[in-house]
Each structure stands twice: as structure tokens, then as C-alpha cells.
């Protein structure tokens, strides 16, 4: 898992809870990396799982809520670092449909070892949009948060449903978006 995920998670948690709580979480998790993350490094996925569950416990927040919030936080981060892309996308449907073919392609050029989820987008009817998330990491909540943040960012009137096809594993989830 790319280091930027860890550094952003910790900075979000510091703002959402407190720096002290984050420090205690790091100690409690007893991570191989010691929590000394750099954005350009790569760290085991298990550290992310440990951090999230410990943050959830000590922060008294359900893990799913935490990860969704993290999705929104990441959206803001990307918005700052890749403003041009968001301007060119213009709306949520457009943005989501370009994740797989444009964003991930670029990410792979920079980080050939990056493990990316797969996003399959389709527009079965005008005004409807289907996004299929697949990843062994089971981070559909992250996608959930990103989608919500995007709708808010573009100020669109869109509601969406979420259906888990992986028996609660969050590894295969279909989001259906309806534009009102």
C-alpha cells in the first residue's frame, strides 16, 4: 500500500481526534514501520488494517464511518494536488468514469508496484451511472467516501445506492448513482 495512504490517514485522524490519540494508536498497534511513514514509500496492508481498527476503537467511531471519512479527506487532498484534472472532469459521472482509464494508468506509470482497485463504470441510462468496485482490500467504504465528496464538490443533486456482492466483505460492491 502506498505511503501516501498512511500519511493522509494519520493526518486526518489527528484532525478528527487528536494528535495524542493518534500517537497512542501507533504505540498500541506496534507496527513494523513504527508509524514512520513517508508518502513515497510502500508499507504492508496489514498496518492499515491495524491502524483503522485501533483508531475506530479508541476514537469510538465505526470503521466504515472512519474509512468513508478518509475517502472524503483523500478527495480534498487530490483536489489540491491535481486541480487541473478535477476542472477538466466537470462532474461526478465524468470523474468516476475516468478513474480506471486515466488516473490508474498514470498512477501505474509512477508506481508500477501500486496495487489498485478496479473500477468499472457504465451509464446504462442517461442520468444513471453504475460503478463497480472490486479489490481484495475490501475498501469499498473508501470509494463510498470519494463518491460523496465528489457529489458535494460539484454541487450535484445525485443520490446513490450501494450493494455488496461479496457477502459483507466489501471486496465487490456496486454503486448505482441517480441524477435527480
Amino acid at each position, binding site marked *: 500500500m502506498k505511503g501516501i495512504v498512511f500519511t493522509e490517514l494519520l493526518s486526518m485522524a489527528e484532525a478528527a481526534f487528536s*494528535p*495524542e490519540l493518534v500517537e497512542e494508536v501507533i504505540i498500541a498497534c506496534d507496527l513494523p514501520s*513504527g*508509524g*514512520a511513514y*513517508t508518502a*513515497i514509500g510502500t508499507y504492508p496492508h496489514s498496518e492499515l488494517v491495524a491502524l483503522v481498527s485501533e483508531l475506530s476503537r479508541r476514537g469510538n467511531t465505526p470503521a466504515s464511518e472512519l474509512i468513508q471519512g478518509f475517502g472524503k479527506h483523500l478527495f480534498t487532498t487530490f483536489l489540491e494536488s491535481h486541480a487541473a484534472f478535477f476542472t477538466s472532469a466537470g462532474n461526478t459521472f465524468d470523474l468516476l468514469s475516468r478513474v480506471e482509464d486515466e488516473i490508474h494508468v498514470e498512477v501505474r506509470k509512477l508506481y508500477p508496484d501500486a496495487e489498485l482497485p478496479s473500477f468499472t463504470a457504465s451509464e446504462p441510462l442517461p442520468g444513471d451511472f453504475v460503478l463497480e468496485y472490486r479489490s481484495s482490500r475490501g475498501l469499498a467504504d473508501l470509494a463510498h467516501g470519494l463518491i460523496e465528496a465528489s457529489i458535494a464538490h460539484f454541487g450535484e443533486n445525485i443520490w446513490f445506492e450501494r450493494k455488496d456482492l461479496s457477502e459483507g466483505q466489501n471486496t465487490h460492491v456496486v454503486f448505482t448513482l441517480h441524477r435527480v
Partner: protein
Amino acid sequence: MDTLEYLRRRLAREQRARQAAETYAEEKTRALFEANKALEEMAAGLQVKIDERTAELREAHDLALAANQAKSAFVANLSHELRTPLNAIIGYGEMLTEDLRALEILDLAHDAQRILSAGNYLLVLINDLLDLEKIEAGELSLLLEEVEVEPVVRHVSEIIRPQVDANRNTLEVDLADDLPALRTDNARLRQILHNLLSNASKFTKDGTIQVGVFPEDRAEGTFLIFEVKDTGIGIAPEALPRIFERFAQADETISARFGGTGLGLALTRRLCQRLGGDIAVASKLGSGSTFRIWLPLEPPLAT
């Protein structure tokens, strides 16, 4: 946890992260540097290889050129040496044939005639070879004059008639109206048409051979197109590029079935080019061939 403890830990973490980032950056920089160096070395190695190969090629090229020149000189000399006795054979063969005919010793006259035919065939061959060598050495001189197409075509058709008839072919001639005269080498034009017609009659049986001549305006000026079309055996696509090379025939069976040495078209093409034109062929195996040559009304060459 008190604030001081928190800050202490936080600082330690940041320091380690920075170190990790620096190590990472240094590793990447080193890897880049190594890759760059390897690339540079490879490029240098390649350049050396290219230089070596170029030198080898140049040497091989020079050798081939020298060998080719030596061979050309040899062929030219040899052909010349062959022609002298051959002319004697043909001359005496003619005399002998006539004498035997006059004495009405017809079976011997027939045999003598065969010697004469064989001698003539050899002479054509040697002349073709000599012409080719001359053209390639840039030594073929042309005799340019105003040439009317109609008499040339008629003359060649007459000469080729026995070969056309031998294979029971029909010869059709179609000249466009008001064909302009062209400035060219009369004898060479005949030689070209003769070669094409001799091929057409040789490779066609019970068929039709059509000769057509018409003008065509092109960017470089007006050209006369001479077309020789037959309904003969045709040429396989893979052989087409080869047939204009010297000593090349469509396949290995041709010389056994039809004779010949594969010089005719090589010479024809060189002659056309020397006269400011060229030759092309379209053919389908089993249904026939069309040879097309084009010559400018005025050859753009100093003679």
C-alpha cells in the same frame, strides 16, 4: 500521554520518516544514475559496433565492386573473342547451306541449316551479353533519329512471324491514330520489341498476342506506350520482381521447357531506361502477361 511525550515521539517518527524518504530518494537516484550509465555504455558500444559493421560492409562492397568490374571486363573480352570465330562459323555455314541446296543434297543442307541456326542463336546470346555489359559500363552509344512507329512495328512483326506461327498464335497489332514520331534509337527499339514479342510467342500456345501503341501525356512530357499482351502461361507473382534480372527465369523448369538464358528482359529493361523510359509487367499465372514499355518522345539524355 502528556504533550511533551507526544511531541517527543512525534518528532522521532518524523525524523525516521525523513530518513526513510532520503534513503529511498538516494536509492532511486543511484538506480537512475546506474541505468543512465548502462545506457551510455550501451550506446557507446553500439556506436563502435556500427562503425565496425560499416567498415566491414564498405570493404565487402568495394570487393564486390572490383569483382564485378573484373567479371564485366572478362565477359566483354570473352564475348568479343567468341564473336570472331562464330562469325566465321555462320558465314561458312551460310555458304555451305546454299552450296548443298544448289547441289540438291537436301538432307545435308538441312543439317547444315541446323548448324547455322544454332550459330545464329549463339550470336544473339553473345550480342545480348555484350550489350548488357556495355550498358552497365555506361559504354552503350545510341544513334538517335526521328523514328516512325508504324514501320518499326511492321518490320518486327514480319521477323517474328515464324515464331508466332510455330505455336499457332494470332498476332494482332493496334496502333493509335496519328501516332507522333519519336526521337530514339531505331535499332534498339526494334530489339526491345523483338525481345517482348519473342517471349510472348515462346510462352503462348494457340493463343493471341496483341501489340498496342498509344501516346500518354505525363508530367514529364508525352510518352509512347508499347504494350505486348499475350494469353500464355503467365508468371507467378513471386517471380515477377525477378524476371528483369539477368539470367533470371520465372522458375527452374523454364529453361528445360522453353530454352533461353534469362537475358532478354534484363537487356530490354536496361535499353528502355537508357532511352529515357522503363518497362513494367502485369501477369496472372495461367492466363497471360502484359508487358508495357514507355519511351519519351524526346529522350532527356546526352548521347
